[in-house]
């Protein structure tokens, strides 16, 4: 039994004061606390008075004990919180109006909540330049408040440990080692650090201006593809609660923004299943190399190139649905529509920051042009819709343009962890056995368990599959493969926890709870669709008949498959630059 501000509450031993207080509806202010991450206890905003203790204690970390008496709102507590917040604010820019996180910033909200009207310390900034070295993520170290949430995310959840405190005292800054640029370190560009960041110190590279310019250019035929996980998240950008799917309104909004064609990445998700499914069957038949590992997630691909270059032969040669789409738009679609591919401006709407990097890979130009010109994240599209003044809520539901907008339920669930695996199994089973699946729901591979496993009989062959989401789990499963502790035939890896619904380009906030809600919504959408197996997609059949001829055929090989780059854990260009800096 614990007493908090006069209210008694019964909680389990080990519960923190913060959790106990929430049980009696007292919301102690926090800043460095994040529900999904290791306790930091560094901002000292959540400090409270514990009777008998000389010091104020951080509620986020301090475990309750029996008969403890806690005061969360004394003059002493309020005074200490204000001083600590003033200290943070004095070391943070005041350009809130120009900040990408304006009105969605935890620091701003906290300053408002604590009623800060004056900062008594002289404002002093680090004066560090922004890191714009990658096409995906922009870091602004001047805005960093050293809460270290991104450090915990990058280390514990994503196993990349790219971001780390550098320097000491007031000069401490969270950055890649030796304050290198992100392009010079083994960063997957997954963007999960953005979800961890309470302020605007880490964000996506904003490419909205490029898209607005293309839309205004009469010589450009601007097409857009919408990724599976964006229809379930775009509503949140526009004021709706998580969990609702807005495919129709999304298409309508894109048309009103001026896109000439609104097509669907779900279409190439189905195509991916056909290509990858056949690749799996071929590898099983030819004796390897197995396991086949999915390649849809560009964050995972870059992570794998840095940390598991020895396992790259296992990775499917299929391009991601985004890049298959890009290659087809400037070939198949251009031919059918009679448009010169050089006039096509291809935009993709993605839940993902790593997709921006993927689109700029040199090998992603199999149409003869850069296959995807600009990648927009859900957040950027939300910004465009808001700026254009489109009243999203009252838009009619519209449909994607055919044929590259036609898709199945199998494609819809690509956005959730286990979805690609489930979609693949639906197709592989039927293609391999020629029989109809008795039950197409593979519940073993759904949900937020870090690593999921299932077995399926293909005729008399037992196929073992594994699913991992979040790069720490990816690392675990890959180490099992490397050490030959587990034998799988097929592994799905998604870089982001929860899969693409939790992607680094999704609306802020994105936490485990929200990832779960978005994922569940995709499974509902799948259930409601008439077609739920990729190989039943008529537009895909037509594509093969008209253009690709056969899965894994020559055209596929040219347009839909790719190769990977072995990268170091310690990329050397950085060292060269460090040496150059030293003169």
């Amino acid at each position: 039994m614990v007493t908090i501000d006069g209210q008694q509450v019964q909680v389990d031993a080990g519960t923190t004061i913060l959790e106990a207080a929430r049980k009696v509806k007292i919301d102690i202010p926090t800043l460095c606390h994040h529900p999904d991450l290791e306790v930091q206890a560094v901002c000292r905003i959540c400090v409270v008075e514990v009777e008998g203790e000389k010091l104020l204690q951080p509620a986020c970390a301090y475990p309750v004990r029996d008969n403890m008496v806690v005061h969360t709102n004394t003059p002493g507590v309020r005074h200490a919180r204000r001083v600590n917040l003033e200290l943070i604010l004095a070391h943070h820019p005041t350009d809130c109006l120009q900040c990408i996180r304006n009105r969605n910033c935890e620091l701003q909200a906290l300053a408002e909540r604590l009623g800060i009207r004056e900062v008594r310390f002289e404002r002093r900034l680090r004066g560090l330049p922004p890191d714009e070295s990658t096409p995906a993520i922009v870091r602004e170290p001047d805005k960093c408040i050293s809460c270290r949430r991104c450090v915990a995310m990058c280390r514990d959840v994503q196993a990349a440990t790219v971001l780390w405190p550098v320097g000491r005292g007031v000069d401490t800054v969270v950055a890649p080692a030796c304050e290198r640029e992100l392009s010079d370190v083994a960063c997957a560009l997954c963007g999960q650090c953005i979800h961890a960041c309470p302020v605007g110190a880490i964000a996506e590279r904003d490419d909205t201006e490029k898209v607005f310019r293309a839309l205004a250019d009469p010589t450009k035929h601007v097409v857009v593809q919408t990724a599976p996980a964006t229809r379930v998240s775009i509503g949140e950008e526009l004021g709706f609660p998580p969990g609702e799917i807005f495919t129709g309104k999304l298409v309508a909004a894109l048309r009103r923004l001026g896109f000439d064609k609104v097509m669907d990445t779900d279409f190439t998700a189905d195509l991916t299943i056909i290509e990858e499914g056949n690749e799996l069957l071929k590898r099983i038949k030819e004796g390897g190399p197995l396991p086949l590992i999915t390649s849809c997630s560009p964050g995972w691909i870059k992570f794998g190139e840095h940390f598991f270059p020895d396992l790259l032969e296992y990775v499917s040669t299929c391009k991601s649905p985004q890049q298959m789409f890009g290659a087809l738009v400037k070939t198949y679609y251009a031919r059918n529509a009679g448009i010169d591919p050089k006039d096509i401006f291809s935009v993709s709407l993605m839940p993902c920051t790593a997709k921006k990097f993927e689109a700029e890979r040199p090998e992603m130009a199999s149409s003869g042009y850069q296959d995807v010109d600009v990648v927009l994240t859900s957040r950027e599209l939300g910004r465009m819709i808001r700026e254009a003044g489109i009243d999203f809520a009252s838009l009619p539901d519209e449909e994607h343009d055919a044929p590259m907008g036609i898709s199945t339920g199998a494609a819809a669930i690509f956005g959730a962890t286990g979805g690609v695996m489930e979609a693949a199994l639906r197709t592989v089973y039927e293609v391999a056995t020629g029989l109809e699946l008795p039950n197409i729901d593979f519940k073993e591979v759904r949900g937020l368990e870090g690593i999921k496993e299932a077995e399926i009989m293909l005729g008399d062959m037992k196929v073992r599959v594994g699913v991992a989401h979040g790069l720490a789990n990816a690392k675990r499963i890959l180490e099992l493969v490397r050490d030959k502790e587990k034998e799988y035939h097929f592994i799905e890896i998604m870089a982001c926890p929860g899969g693409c619904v939790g992607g680094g380009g999704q609306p802020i906030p994105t936490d485990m709870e929200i990832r779960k809600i978005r994922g569940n919504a995709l499974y509902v959408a799948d259930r409601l669709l008439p077609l739920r197996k990729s190989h039943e997609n008529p537009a895909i059949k037509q594509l093969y008949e008209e253009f690709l001829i056969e899965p894994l055929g020559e055209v596929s090989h040219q347009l839909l498959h790719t190769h990977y780059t072995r990268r170091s854990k310690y990329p050397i260009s950085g060292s060269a630059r460090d040496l150059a800096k030293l003169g």
Partner: protein
Amino acid sequence: MQFYRSHVLVCGGTPCVLEGCKAVRDALIGELKRVGLDEEIRVVETGCLGPCDLGPVIVVYPEGTLYEKVQVRDVPQIVEEHLLKGRIVRRLTGEGRLAGIVSYKEPTYLETQERIVLRNCGIIDPSSIEEYIARDGYKALVKCLTEMEPCDVVEVVKQSGLVGRGGAAFPTGLKWSFTANADADEKFIICNADEGEPGTFKDRLILEGDPHSILEAMAIAGYAVGAKRGFVYIRGEYVLSIEQIGKGIEQAKALGLLGEDILGSGFSFDVEIRKGAGAYVCGEETALIESMEGGRGEPRVKPPYPGTHGFLGKPTVVNNVETLANIPPIILNGPVWYRGFGTSKCPGTKVFTMTGDINNKGLIEVPMGITLRKIIYEIGGGIPEGRGFKMAQTGGTSGGCLPREMLDVPMDYFTLPEMGSALGSGALLIMDDSHCIVDIAESFMRFFARESCGKCVPCREGTARLHDIVKNIAHGNGTEKDLEVLKDLSHAMEKTSLCGLGQSAPIPIMTMLKYFGDEFEAHIKDKLCPTGTCRL
């Protein structure tokens, strides 16, 4: 073991090294060889002997004659007169405070001192385990292993009233009991020899002068709590300490006093050295553990405490060097004997390192509860050049600054905090009336701003702000509001910082404002530095 009729101890402490003790040592060895005395007389390099401003210092045993400021040119005379003919060279015993003192064994300098921790320093050859054993070394360990149960050992330490000498004054026996009671497959003992507090050098001198006392104490602690491995986490700059401890470990292992199945008791204990890289914060026990695990030297969130969740997450006792040095005598002589020293609340002795404006600088060991006046004017020989006493900072840079009115305050771990100060590690910085308080404050705050690890907000941001504000005042740009902000900020830092660094960084400022507020006001209102130190 070879016997010598005489030993010449050459102080190897840093100040003496700077004054050229190594050349003196070499000259002694050469001269003794030349006159054919090298079989009879042994030259020993020791840890610091204490009177650091009189170096190079040498002591000749068995007489205990202390020679000060010995130069190479003096060596032939010492050998010729003293070592060959037995006549003391008075010329070299005479200039400083040791004038007229012939014997190091009982000079007035040591009269008020009580040497428990430093019992062997300057007396034995630290690189000889035999000499340590000859002075009851490892007897306490043998007693533990043969006559006592582990819980008895913990109980004796509890009853002795010994509290941690690193600064936090946590009861040592209680600390041991947490680890002893913890259930784990592995436990550890760590000797904290990081000693980063400016002006503190006692741990180094203990390690240099009596390394085996620490190894023995660690083994006793290991036996008491059930640990088989110990680590000495030692400042990388402490080259001689590292060498002495390293030698000590080898010797103890060779005699079976460390290692597997010690003395056939079934108890095994091994000690390894870990070198620190110089961060002040790594003296904090959880930051030290982080550093040992290869992490960034930063404190951890407590609870849990190292006693149950320490090195590699296992129960770990972290004890300061001086704390450990007390253990063997306590075991041998019992808690009642130990409680005979110092005060009833705070028994035992304390080693202080005296620096600043004081005639006798160096290392002393005195009973707890002694007054500042007695230390400064009786042992320390007063303030040089007849200047007035202004303030003493006790406990290192994070300690409080005490004015003249506090000279009669008993120095112990419980009284000083009541005065807003701290006994801390035992650093004692004396300042005469020529110093400006704002100038001193600026230099202290600069130290903390540099040493803050950058983890928690109040310390990371606060230490820099304290420095900013004080610097502003020193430059004549201060306002009265600054004093208010200083107080507010200090309060928040003391109450909410993650570790002792941030919690105690404002202590000097707070005590300075309390006792020397008028000097701050002179800088702010009159734009005047009363001592003429600050260029306003």
